């Protein structure tokens, strides 16, 4: 039996400043179709603070996660930073910058990424692998700061991105056990969305789709097929049926994307996802951690219950995580502080 991997603590940081979607910078420059699509996404407002970088957002969430886990930075055995969409400077290491800022001097430190909104999964896979491979390791901190790369926060026809940080302490025990992780990718879509930045002022950066019909058709139907297969595999190999899953929590792109996933899998997405989408927009790989945290804060998941966290990315990556609430899965250790 594989060793237990658990989320010991998870924390989010949202800037205070609220930006209504109706007042997004650059909205007036969009054509009518783009504006109508943007207004129909189900995002009412996002948090946006130009004085905070993606690194700042990750660092603030990391500090909160450590505090909630009752750990000092020196207790960390490893630190994994999920790369920001756009680095502040080339050649530098944001991961070791975070190590220095926190004072996590002992922590084995590196970054992962490359899968857009699905990039939490490689971070968790790496954390699980470290804990399995080295018996001396106890605590791994995973952190990410989500900030869109381009000043126009609207990505046509997909979502509106906000600012936010999230972090989780992954340990051998904790109130949410990560039972299984499945992930697939298809490199055919590696550049379906892109931001051309070389020799362009930042004000001109824009997230652009190479081929919207491909996004709306081929990637959509492939996503249906992939999610169905991954869902079946995840449940089958854990001897579970869909009725055993108490909550499905998705990444937050749009109400349409939630409906898509619900129809594709014959499931219901948790209401916390709709609420977080409405008030925070899309936060990249942080969405599922935010939704899990919200669900637990609301008392929507009890000890022993299972949840599935779903993520998909337009770079064509799909991931499902199976988690169970409670230290032992039978409700024996009830007090969680996620």
């Amino acid at each position, binding site marked *: 039996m594989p060793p237990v991997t658990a989320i010991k603590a998870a924390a989010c940081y949202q800037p205070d400043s609220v930006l209504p979607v109706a007042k997004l910078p650059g909205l007036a420059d969009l054509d009518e*179709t783009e504006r109508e699509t943007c207004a129909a996404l189900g995002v009412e407002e996002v948090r946006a603070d130009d004085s905070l970088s993606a690194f700042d957002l990750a660092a603030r969430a990391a500090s909160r996660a450590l505090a909630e886990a009752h750990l000092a930075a020196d207790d960390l055995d490893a630190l994994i930073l999920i790369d920001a969409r756009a680095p502040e400077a080339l050649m530098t290491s944001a991961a070791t910058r975070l190590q220095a800022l926190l004072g996590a001097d002992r922590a084995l430190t590196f970054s992962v990424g490359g899968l857009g909104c699905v990039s939490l999964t490689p971070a968790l896979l790496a954390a699980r692998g470290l804990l399995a491979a080295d018996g001396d390791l106890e605590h791994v901190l995973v952190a990410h700061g989500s900030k869109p790369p381009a000043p126009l926060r609207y990505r046509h*026809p997909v979502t509106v991105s906000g600012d936010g940080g999230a972090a989780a302490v992954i340990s051998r025990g904790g109130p949410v056990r990560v039972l299984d992780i499945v992930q697939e990718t298809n490199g055919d879509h590696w550049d379906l969305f892109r931001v051309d930045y070389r020799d362009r002022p930042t004000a001109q950066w824009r997230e652009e789709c190479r081929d919207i*019909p*491909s*996004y*709306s*058709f*081929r*990637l*959509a*139907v*492939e*996503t*249906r*097929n992939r999610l169905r297969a991954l869902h079946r595999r995840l449940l089958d190999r854990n001897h579970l049926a869909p009725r055993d899953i108490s909550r499905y929590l998705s990444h937050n792109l749009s109400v*349409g*994307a939630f*409906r*898509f996933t619900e*129809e*594709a899998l014959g499931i219901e997405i948790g209401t916390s996802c709709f609420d977080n989408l409405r008030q925070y927009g899309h936060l990249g790989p942080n969405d599922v951690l935010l939704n899990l945290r919200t669900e637990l804060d609301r008392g929507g998941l009890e000890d022993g219950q299972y949840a599935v966290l779903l993520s998909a990315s337009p770079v064509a990556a799909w991931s499902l995580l199976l988690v169970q609430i409670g230290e032992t899965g039978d409700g024996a250790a009830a007090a969680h502080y996620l």
Partner: protein
Amino acid sequence: METPNQTDAAAVADVTQELSAYLTRNLGQELGPDEDYFALGLVNSLFAMELVNFVEQRYGIEVGVDDLDLDHFRTLGRLRDFVLAKTANRGAAA
């Protein structure tokens, strides 16, 4: 008694009518057999999946990754031809 050609012609007409009715009902406008509803911006991801779900369930076919060429789906005429080819293959394989 119907000849095979008459039967084929009837099947083509039936499939065309069903698909046309489905598209008209869901896209809010009647489209000609060669009008590209993707190029017209009428299709989002959710409808694309629902369209594929509809043809799979109505005609008993499976749309796999190898079938995901947009050219099969972008007009009523092409969608009809795709459905007829898949149902013919299913019959041949049975």
